[in-house]
């Protein structure tokens, strides 16, 4: 009796999209924080101080190696227990905040590697030229190195954002009503009778946005490096 009804896919799409703002909130906040954290670790890995290199390497290796889902469970279930023992109560922290924290940490490792390699990809000679002209290292960085590093990083950044966007769907695991959480809620509201249609709808929505982001990345890259490349 459980027949496949394509029309249910179309019905599900607007319902799932109600949670789009939540997914966007998670995506954009995690993006911002992961860039900040990533920048800090990229700076450490490029520093001349050995200790900082080691710390950064260890962090990146750990965060890249651990599945995001495990990280979410560790932080959402484990961290409050640990902190409770030393007298810090985490019960006031919202679920969304947990998810944003976990995704930020997880993606920051990739962001850090992206920034490090983009920085190193800019020819060292240009930095020397900037210094020889009399620019301070900071001015040389912001006027000469950074603009080129950004251009180099755009494709990787696009990939990282797409990855992050897909990982926002893990938010449902701790009960956040993102698009995935919404899909589950819609599905269970009619006792799972249309779950296939609903998850197809969810998949289509994610795919459509990823497709747009891919296009956006290409456009951004083209616009940014216009005329400069050999």
């Amino acid at each position: 009796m459980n027949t496949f009804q394509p029309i249910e896919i179309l019905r599900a799409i607007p319902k799932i999209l109600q949670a789009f703002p939540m997914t966007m909130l998670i995506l954009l906040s995690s993006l911002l924080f992961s860039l900040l954290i990533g920048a800090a670790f990229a700076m450490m890995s490029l520093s001349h101080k050995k200790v900082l290199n080691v710390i950064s390497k260890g962090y990146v290796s750990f965060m890249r190696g651990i599945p995001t889902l495990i990280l979410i469970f560790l932080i959402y279930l484990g961290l409050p227990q640990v902190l409770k023992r030393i007298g810090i109560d985490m019960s006031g922290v919202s679920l969304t905040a947990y998810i944003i924290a976990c995704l930020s940490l997880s993606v920051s490792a990739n962001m850090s590697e992206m920034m490090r390699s983009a920085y190193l990809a800019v020819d060292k000679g240009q930095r020397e030229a900037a210094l020889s002209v009399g620019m301070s290292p900071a001015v040389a960085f912001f006027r000469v190195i950074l603009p080129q590093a950004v251009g180099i990083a755009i494709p990787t950044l696009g990939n990282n954002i797409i990855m992050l966007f897909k990982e926002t769907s893990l938010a449902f695991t701790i009960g956040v009503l993102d698009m995935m959480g919404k899909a589950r809620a819609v599905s269970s509201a009619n006792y799972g009778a249309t779950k296939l249609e609903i998850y197809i709808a969810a998949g289509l929505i994610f795919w459509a946005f990823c497709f747009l982001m891919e296009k956006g990345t290409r456009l951004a890259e083209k616009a940014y490096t216009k005329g400069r490349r050999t």
Partner: protein
Amino acid sequence: MMVSLKNIKKSFGSQQVLNGVDLDIDVGEVVVILGPSGSGKTTLLRTINFLDPGDEGSVTVGEHTVNCKKHTRPEVLGLRRRTAMVFQNYNLFANKTILENVMEGLITVKRRPKPVAEEISRKMLTRVGLSERFDYYPSALSGGQQQRAGIARALVLEPDVILFDEPTSALDPELVGEVLQTIKGIAETGITMIVVTHEIAFAKEVASRVIYMQDGVIVEQGPPSEILVHPQDPRTQRFLRRITDPNQDPKHIDMKQDDPQPEQVVEAG
């Protein structure tokens, strides 16, 4: 005195590259530094603007003296603002047009208003023969054009001294002439220049003084008519013999090859 180097020593790891170099250069001198690869000539040039700070000694440009061992950032900045450098690989800013490359120093370092900087830069680029190329990015230009833009970028800052680090070594042979011609034109304006090069003919024609370096020390120096024609030191003589040998690529002269070496046995497997 325009430039004064005192007892410059520098090593990379265990490799001693400069073994106590003293050098005084007067206003308006065109000093050409010759020497085999590994002689320390490029490193010497780079210690002057602290791209590679010396381990010991001091650098003076104009009235500004900086100690190699103990120096602060503002001191180094002051030194760099009195000097300019032309690089072997041009090192133009790839994200900026030729015009912007030349303007960059005027705007960020000399704090000239943009229209003024643009006007000065256009004039300078016209002077090096690039008036048709203002809005081109470096990647769209030939090596010779890029290097002339690099020269314009250095010259526009009106430095006390311009440092040329093998300015023609990366160029295709047919482009060397136009760049040397440009450098020659600048030398005639009376600006102080230090040029590291392998172009003996250029040294003969343009230099007011030729310095021969080997193994991190100045072996011999004097006017080109003496050093290039009647060198006193056997090392200079040998170098000049080799560099004028038409079968020798001047960029890859290794003086150590003069010592007879046992043939290496290549192990099988």
